[in-house]
């Protein structure tokens, strides 16, 4: 194990990005392992290869900006600041999970950090982000909402409805398409007939395309896009071309796919190359990775120590307890 060594500079902001990339990557890898070991129940969809999208976009958001996510939402949640303990405890279905063990991977959410939820329904987060943007505007918060969705989700009707409505009302919403080329087991190109940039432009929503695996490129593009959105001119679409390295979900045998795809574009490798070009020491990189690993270890240990999710607590949360007389 590399010797821990404090970084000497943040390398023009890149080091915090690198750390965030490492955090997501290692969380995903750990979850893959925990899933394989039978410790994580249900379906999990890992975002390995797509980390730079989450990190780059979130780098230009504040805590009170809101995001609505997808079934592949771990990276979004982590980059937005969900606490690691509650995150792992949720994935492990424990009482201390951020959602009390009732939601799991597809429903991680943390309202305190503006993470309005992963979502098991493809496309469903998009109108939620739209509504959140409406709330930002109506309440004058000055914050914006961000809607993440995949390229397969582009086929859902709500995408169209939401683009139309957001454009019409010039809402402060940033649409982020994570174009990983796949919609489950099918290439997205076999499901989406339209050109995204032209389509978006038809609504008057400017489309900014970017290499979604280069965190610096994403952050720069997101900065410009978010500036436009905050400026009040209406929604912007950020198209992040990225790679789904793993199967659609863990356990997917991926018979539909050749093995070598995408490796060359690994977001971590791209960030490391940049850092090396800036002369970072290997030991600094290793130290970051180690420190992240230690945090994850601690979170997993804590999660395992947490009790099982409580049925009584779940049952009590179907409705909001009424303070006597409150509702009238």
């Amino acid at each position, binding site marked *: 194990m590399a010797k821990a060594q404090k970084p000497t500079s943040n390398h023009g902001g890149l080091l915090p990005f690198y750390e965030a990339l490492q955090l997501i990557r290692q969380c995903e890898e750990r979850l893959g392992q925990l899933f394989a070991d039978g410790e994580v129940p249900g379906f999990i969809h890992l975002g390995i290869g797509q980390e730079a999208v989450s990190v780059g976009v979130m780098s230009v958001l504040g805590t009170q900006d*809101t995001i609505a996510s997808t079934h592949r939402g771990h990276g979004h949640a982590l980059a937005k600041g969900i606490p690691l303990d509650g995150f792992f405890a949720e994935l492990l279905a424990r009482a201390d999970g951020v959602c009390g063990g009732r939601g799991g991977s597809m429903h991680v959410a943390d309202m305190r950090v503006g993470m309005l939820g992963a979502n098991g329904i493809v496309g469903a987060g998009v109108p939620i982000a739209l*509504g959140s943007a409406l709330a930002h505007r109506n309440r004058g918060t000055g914050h914006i909402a961000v809607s993440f969705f995949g390229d397969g989700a582009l086929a859902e009707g709500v995408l169209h409805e939401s683009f139309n409505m957001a454009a019409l009302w010039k809402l402060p919403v940033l649409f982020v398409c994570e174009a990983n080329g796949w919609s489950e087991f099918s290439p997205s190109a076999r499901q989406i007939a339209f050109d995204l940039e032209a389509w978006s432009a038809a609504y008057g929503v400017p489309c900014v395309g970017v290499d979604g695996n280069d965190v610096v490129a994403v952050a720069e593009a997101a900065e410009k896009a978010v500036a436009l959105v905050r400026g009040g001119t209406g929604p912007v679409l950020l198209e992040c071309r990225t790679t789904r390295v793993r199967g659609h979900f863990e356990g997917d045998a991926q018979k539909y796919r050749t093995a070598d795809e995408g490796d060359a574009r690994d977001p971590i490798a791209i960030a490391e190359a940049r850092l090396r070009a800036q002369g970072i020491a290997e030991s600094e990189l290793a130290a970051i990775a180690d420190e992240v690993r230690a945090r994850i270890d601690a979170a997993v240990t804590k999660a395992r120590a947490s009790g099982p999710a409580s049925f009584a607590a779940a049952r009590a949360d179907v409705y909001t307890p009424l303070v006597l007389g409150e509702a009238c």
Partner: protein
Amino acid sequence: MADLRYGAALNRALADAMAEDGDVIVMGEDIAGAGGSFGVTRGLLDRFGAGRVIDTPISEATIAGAAVGAAMGGLKPVFEIMFMDFATLTMDAMVNQAAKARFMFGGQCSLPIVLRTPHGGGLSAGPQHSQCLEAWFAHVPGLKVVCPSDAASAYGLLRGAIADPDPVVFVEHKGLYARKWDAPDDLAVLPLGQAAVLRDGRDATVVCYGAAVHLALAAADGLAAEGTSVEVIDLRTIQPWDEATVLASLARTHRLVIVHEAVEAFGVGAEIAARMADVGFDELDGPIVRVGAPFMPVPFAKGLEAAYQPSAAQVVAAIRKAMGREFSQEA
């Protein structure tokens, strides 16, 4: 006391709620400029402005989904779905998102959303503009379902629904909008979940909601003339429904009839009957009889629609049947 229409009561409820709480907004198709297809939102645009009274495109799924996000952001959206039949387009947002958010996020949030929508026939509006689909929503944990029967309860329940922290499907009956009732000037806010005993009786209990309440009252009037005393319970809230009030009434009358305009099969009445056939079994002295629409789409022709919609005469017959007097002479 003054005459008050059901539609005007709803309008007043919206205005009062908006005046009290700046986070309440209303949205829907042609609800701002035009004041809504049934006039329920009339005048709100002028009073509260386009920021809070929002005309939307014809995009029901996204209107409902946006209400979820808006509620997460602290607003209290009340949105109109022009006909309940179009609520078919909002089912993901209502059922998978709104109903479950509090539960599946571990109690992190409450979603104070109201979906207002009219159901029911009587306008020859045909099979796609007349359905009563409240039983669907009542089957969904996390949603509440309300259906008022007159002006005062329309006001009180809509205020109660808007004040409620959880998502509410608020069902109005198209045939009631223009009807008026004597109502106090100072209308009360009504909490959800409480039924109203509109008429006391000894011989049979009729449970009903919405427009069917008036069939039940008419039937009770008719039977009173021949000495049969019928208790009429207006459920008001369908989910959660007031089981205690129904059971207490059944324990006095021992006979139960349930009436609604929705299709009888797999309708709201089924749940009430099923509960009473369990927890109320020992009180039952006769079959539980339901009156609802037959198992067919709502037809367009006036005559067909009239034959389709439940009638007071059917309620009378049902009460007789529940009382074991189905072969007695007609009234």
